[in-house]
């Protein structure tokens, strides 16, 4: 040490030329160290290109255009396939579509939904870029994650806005999903910025235009029917009269349950049997004490006249499960009963608290689904959808088991999420391509927004879930609603397609003005 010091002091410092060189070198080293330090600390904040930890959170939020899987290995295969597809595209020849979903969610059910939507969106992207005679523009798919609870939507919206204005040429956002506050705000912000949005599994009425004559989300298109349409379809499916059915409804209810309740009440107008209400906890995902109420309701059911064979349920899935479990223990198991409800019923397929034996005691649970793989297999209506359209997707899925399409990981169609996401993406592709003026590679944003009102008639989208003909507010008109039945094994069985209008749309598929 002393020798080093002496060397520095005498052989370097005293000879001015060496001193200056040493100082210069030291400055360079320090600068390099500082730069490296800055880069290192920045890497600490970043999860992947475009994706980073927000202040005070270890969530990975942002828009990913790479093969980053948000730390969820179930996405890895699909994300790689998307990245491969994106890399194939030549700059300037594509438009970007963002899939807006909470990719970092932790609930397995939610992750399943997201995985399936991701697969559906990718398959539609692949199809658009490969199977449609080289139509332009090509589609680039990026993943937008507003965080597990959607809290960082603003960050993501800002980024998407920048991408819309920049060389990424972002022209549409698909996904969105559940009707949460954050999603509503994000949707409002995106549509205000003029970015077209295609909702996949949104069914809530308040995430739609045209409700009460207002269009709060200009540029929003949906591929799932509204709750109202679902309730109407369900009612047309049930074909029950006042003396055959008992209405059980959530009181005070939320927009979803009230929509169902209204539709059911119209169906049962003039019934002599009084509807039964229950009051769930404020958080309807909790069990609470409602189990007792449903035991009483079960005994009420047994007291009703023998003609009553249907229970119309306007409530959420936790309460539905409690009702089903209570009905399993009812006194009058010799009476055959059917519970009819909306798409909340689909949650029971994976619910471990459901007692499977309840379904073996002359009790069936039927509900509407967003889409079902078997919908077009058995029963083919002339209009409103077709087996050929479903088969296109089936073929694509078969091809996706290996290169060049896949692999994209385990595929499951039962929950309909893949199908609906695929259809949403197809709707987006069609809108984007129709809006592209001749001679231009990329459509202007405003043209895409206006395009939704033309998706009808011969310009409809023949989705795998059925025809998609949009009305003036971007909602699908007379969309096929598959009714499925819960099986004792925890799965679901397709029953029949129901139609909001009571019958399939006409061949022209033109919504009434």
């Amino acid at each position: 040490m002393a020798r080093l010091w002496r060397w520095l002091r005498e052989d370097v410092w005293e000879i001015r030329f060496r001193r200056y060189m040493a100082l210069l070198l030291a400055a360079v080293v320090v600068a390099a160290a500082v730069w490296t330090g800055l880069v290192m600390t920045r890497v600490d904040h970043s999860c992947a290109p475009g994706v980073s930890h927000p202040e005070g959170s270890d969530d990975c939020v942002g828009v990913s255009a790479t093969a980053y899987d948000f730390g969820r290995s179930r996405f890895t295969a699909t994300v790689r396939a998307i990245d491969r597809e994106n890399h194939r595209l030549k700059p300037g020849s594509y438009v970007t579509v963002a899939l807006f979903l909470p990719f970092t969610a932790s609930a397995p059910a939610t992750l399943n939904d997201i995985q399936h939507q991701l697969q559906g969106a990718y398959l539609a992207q692949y199809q658009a870029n490969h199977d449609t005679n080289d139509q332009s523009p090509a589609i680039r798919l990026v993943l937008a994650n507003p965080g597990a609870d959607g809290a960082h939507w603003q960050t993501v919206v800002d980024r998407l806005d920048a991408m819309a204005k920049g060389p990424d040429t972002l022209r549409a956002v698909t996904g969105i999903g559940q009707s949460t506050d954050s999603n509503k705000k994000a949707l409002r912000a995106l549509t205000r910025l003029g970015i077209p949005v295609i909702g996949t599994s949104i069914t809530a009425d308040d995430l739609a235009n045209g409700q009460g004559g207002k269009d709060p989300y200009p540029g929003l298109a949906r591929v799932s029917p509204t709750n109202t349409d679902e309730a109407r379809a369900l009612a047309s499916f049930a074909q029950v009269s006042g003396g055959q059915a008992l209405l059980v409804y959530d009181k005070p209810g939320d927009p979803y349950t009230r929509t169902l309740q209204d539709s059911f009440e119209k169906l049962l107008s003039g019934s002599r049997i009084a509807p039964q209400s229950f009051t769930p906890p404020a958080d309807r995902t909790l069990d609470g004490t409602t189990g007792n109420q449903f035991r009483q309701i079960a005994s009420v059911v047994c007291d009703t006249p023998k003609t009553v064979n249907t229970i119309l349920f306007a409530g959420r899935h936790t309460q539905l499960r409690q009702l089903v479990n209570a009905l399993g223990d009812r006194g009058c198991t010799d009476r055959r009963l059917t519970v009819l409800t909306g798409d909340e019923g689909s949650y029971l397929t994976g619910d471990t608290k459901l007692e499977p034996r309840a379904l073996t005691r002359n009790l069936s649970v039927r509900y509407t689904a967003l889409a079902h793989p078997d919908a077009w297999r058995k029963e083919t209506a002339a209009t409103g959808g077709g087996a050929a359209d479903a088969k296109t997707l089936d073929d694509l899925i078969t091809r996706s088991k290996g290169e060049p399409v896949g692999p994209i990981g385990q595929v499951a169609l039962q929950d309909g999420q893949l199908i609906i996401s695929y259809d949403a993406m197809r709707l987006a592709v069609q809108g984007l391509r129709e809006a592209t003026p001749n001679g231009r590679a990329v459509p202007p944003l405003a043209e895409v927004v206006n395009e939704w009102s033309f998706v009808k008639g011969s310009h409809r989208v023949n989705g795998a879930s059925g025809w998609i003909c949009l009305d003036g507010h971007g909602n699908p008109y007379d969309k096929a609603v598959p009714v499925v039945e819960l099986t004792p094994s925890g799965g679901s069985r397709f029953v029949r397609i129901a139609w909001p209008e009571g019958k399939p749309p006409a061949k022209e598929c033109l919504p009434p003005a």
Partner: protein
Amino acid sequence: MHRSLHGRGPLFDTDPPGLAARLVGARPYQLRSSPYEHQDDLPFVVFAGGRGLGKSALLAEIRTAYQGHTPVALIDGEEAQFAGPPANRPRAAWSPVAHALTTVAEQLAEPVKGAGRISFPRLASGLLAVAAGGWSDRNVARIRQEAERILLLNDSRSFLDGLAGRWVSKVIAKLVASLSNAGPVVEPIIEATLEAFSEGVSPTHRRLRRAATWFRDYPNAGGNPKLGLILLSGHFRAGGDSRTHAERFLVRALLADLDDAYAGVMQRSHRLGRPVVLIDNVQAPAGRGLMEAVLRDRADGLGDQVVFFSALRGYALPALRHAVRRTLAEVARTTGWEPGSSPSSRALLVSLPPLTPDDTLHIVGALCRGLDVPPQLPHATHRLTGGSPLGITLLGESARQNLPGGAESLGALLTGDVALHADHDGRPAYRELLDRLVPDGRLDELTVLAAAHDRDSALALAEDRLPDDFGAAGVLGLQERLTEEGWPTADGQFVGDPFLRALLLLRLHHLDADHAQWKAVHRAVIDHYGGRDTTDAARYRLHHELALGNADLAVEHLRDTFPGTEVGAWLRSLVFIASAPYYHAHDPEGHDDSDGHDHRAAVALGRTDPAQRPPEGVDAALHLRVRRLLHAVWQLTDPLVLPDPEVAERLRFELEQLSNLRPGGTALLWRASRDWPSDALAGRPLRIPGDDGDGDGSQG
């Protein structure tokens, strides 16, 4: 730090900086800068002193201290290479100064830490022009050899220049080619040289081109460098003052090249301090010419930033008449030097002091590490040598080699063999010392004359004991030489320096096995003074009788004069007579006889008194007392033996007793009884109480 020289702190100190650090601007032994004392005008430092004062060692140490840190060159003016031209080289084209410049430049060129080689294009072209004056087309091999040595001074050995050797051989080929036609050679050589310097585009060649034009400022050259070089060559060949003039220009060329190496921010930033030129024996022609040229140029306002340290044998030189004189201790913190108008005032003459007893202690201690050194040896060594670094070092070395063999006295150390190099046979130390102190002949004559006390006795001795052709002129010449070489003079001694005298007398004693010469020389001196009847003559006579072993005459004289003489004068006589050399019998090889023990102590302690028979009619007690006193002083003041504490104690007693016998001189005798024993044991000369000063005559 690592200091190998003792007593030279004022020169080598670092904190606060000593003379070297202040002039060079860098600490000795360290690569650390140090503040300058003189910014623009530098003193030309001349270390002055006689032989054996360590001047050469000092310069060598300065070189060691700065080697590798700043350019250093060391030449010795008395080296054989500067004495005359090599065989087959005409005198017209060679001078000690020109050769010294070549040697200095070659040493300064060596790369130092942080900077590369220095090249000397100006000096090289000048030297080439001078050398060409001795060339003809007959001896091409010699021309090649001389030209190569000079041209290599240009060689910076930078990788930018490619293989420098190639450039040199190219130029030599060109020079040789220009010789082919008969006739004058100087002009074509100069032409070819300038032409060679003007080619090439590398930075080095640009420097060469600039340097080639330097000689256009030569007087009467009219701005033409070629003419300048021709004139330089002519002046050099002409000899005399013209040559001195030419040499001055060559020196100036060397300094200009050095300045060039330190010019510019970039070059300076590679270097620390100033370049150092060390000239030993500056009184010899090579050194003197160099020094005079530098002093004159500096006085003329042609400044340079080269630090010169030189060593002068003796203390005076005509060229240094107005030099500022200082002792080494005076320049420890500041020189106080201000240049005057004359060239010689540009010099700073620093006289080197002898070493102190403490330095002696340290040197002997360092040399004899691990040996059982008699406690009085270091002080006795200092008393014998008078602080001469050479004497102390050689005696210390002899002690290291001979103490284990049983040598005890300094006399034994001087006669004992000492081997200075591991592969050399040993020689008696006194001969080694004399070889260095009196190297240039006339040692035999000086050995005889060492017994003389003044010019008269020296002349008498020369007449009696030396060959006829030596004569009076030889005596006077020797006396002058002693003065020139810086040997001190002393009243009552032909050879003033006690150490040198002791060595010479020792040599005289050992000249032949039966000491015939020794006896004859002393007898001759006694005879010389025998005819005179003065007090001094009596003292000299008795001194030499005592040297021959006849103590009785001295005892008689001192006993008889004690009552009637003034006590101070009597004591002075006692000390002088007792300063006689005491050389007892030795074997034929010159070594001390093994049983030849020193009998003086026995006499001084009264052990021989019973056998003594004082002459009839004298005070027997006083006789014996004076006899004991004489032997005590003789023993205690003999520089070749260690003082005996028992004898010193007896001396005190005897002087006390004497003080009772002289009521008028009690105080003086009493004082002497107190001072002398301690002075003798400490190796100090005995002082006569009441005398001021040291009393020179009492030393030997």
